[in-house]
């Protein structure tokens, strides 16, 4: 249940950036989370309310863009959709792959007032 640490990390970034921009509050936060990043969205939503309490994010709308996993086989260069981190290349069955997309864990943008 590291999602609480993740949520607190998001709060920290939002607090810093809001302060830098001389703003008072965040009205909307955009997050990008990959399906291979190791974060359960359900758990993140579960801890979200308690993590943002009394922070600049308290009244912010949260928008999460989920990024699907994309791998590229190191042996045969095939690009393939990845549902799991252990998916093998569908073309040559190799275990050696690079993960091109799906590990994202980012605060993309904040809308502040």
């Amino acid at each position, binding site marked *: *249940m*590291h*999602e*609480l*640490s*993740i949520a*607190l*990390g*998001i*709060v*920290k*970034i939002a*607090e810093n*950036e809001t*302060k830098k*921009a*001389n*703003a*008072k*509050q965040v*009205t909307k936060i955009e*997050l990008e989370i990959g399906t291979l990043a*190791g974060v359960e969205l359900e*758990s993140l939503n*579960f*801890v979200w309310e*308690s*993590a943002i*309490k*009394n*922070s*600049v994010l308290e009244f912010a709308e949260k928008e999460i863009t989920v990024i699907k996993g994309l791998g590229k086989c190191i042996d045969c260069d095939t690009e393939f959709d990845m549902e*799991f*981190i*252990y998916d*093998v290349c569908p073309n040559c069955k190799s*275990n*050696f792959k690079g993960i091109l997309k799906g590990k994202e*864990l*980012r*605060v*993309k*943008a*904040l*809308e*502040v*007032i």
Partner: protein
Amino acid sequence: MCGTCGCGTGKEGPIILKPGEHKHAHKEHHHLHEGHHHTHDEDHHHDDHTHSHDHSHDHKHKVLKIEQDILQNNQVLAARNRGYFEAKNIFALNLVSSPGSGKTSILERTLADLKDEISFYVIEGDQQTMNDANRIDALNIPVIQINTGKGCHLESDMVYEAVKKLEIKDNSILMIENVGNLVCPSMFDLGENKRVVIISTTEGEDKPIKYPDMFYTSDICIINKIDLLPYVNINIEKLKNYALQVNPNLQFFEVSATTGEGMEAWYGWLKSPS
């Protein structure tokens, strides 16, 4: 705080102690309420109001492009730890596993067998108790215990504080025993040189694909309790294949911390890691 596994960060933050030290030196870790935020500022302080009109009056809302990694804070401090280790030629290992795989037993045996050849330091991570630190302390190895409270993993700032307290000498090996948990610690780089995942023969052979993130981020996989192989229903080759499917670069050691079988190969790697 969390109903799923009960984890979260206590109000006091982690407690970082040497054996025998008293329990008051706690350090604030997470600040839920960094900076004071008063939503009523505008009502109360009218002179504050003038400041916010530097920008155009039409655009009350402003969009800030952030594009920042959520784990950046942890990564920055991990990099700082890593630089410190490199400068002092400290080889740091992050030992991870589920509870009960034998992390502490492997550590105890390793320290007991090699302490005359190698200078060791240990950081123990557990939610509660000094038990593991006391086990290491009994071997006369410098050790710090981090109690994470409700936290389910170590983070780089805790290791940073613990390392400062340990006063590690140059050319040493630092063993960081993470909280027993095969999920959460995988995301948190501590600045270690190598991550060592431990699995025992009493666990299912499909564990690597059930908990792939930990195997994906590890460099070494120690399979412990091989002395129990005659009594348990596990296919080690299958386990290895699952692990390699997640991470084809994993290097394996099969050991028994109880009988000492297989430990020599692990010691060989520790003395000259490749």
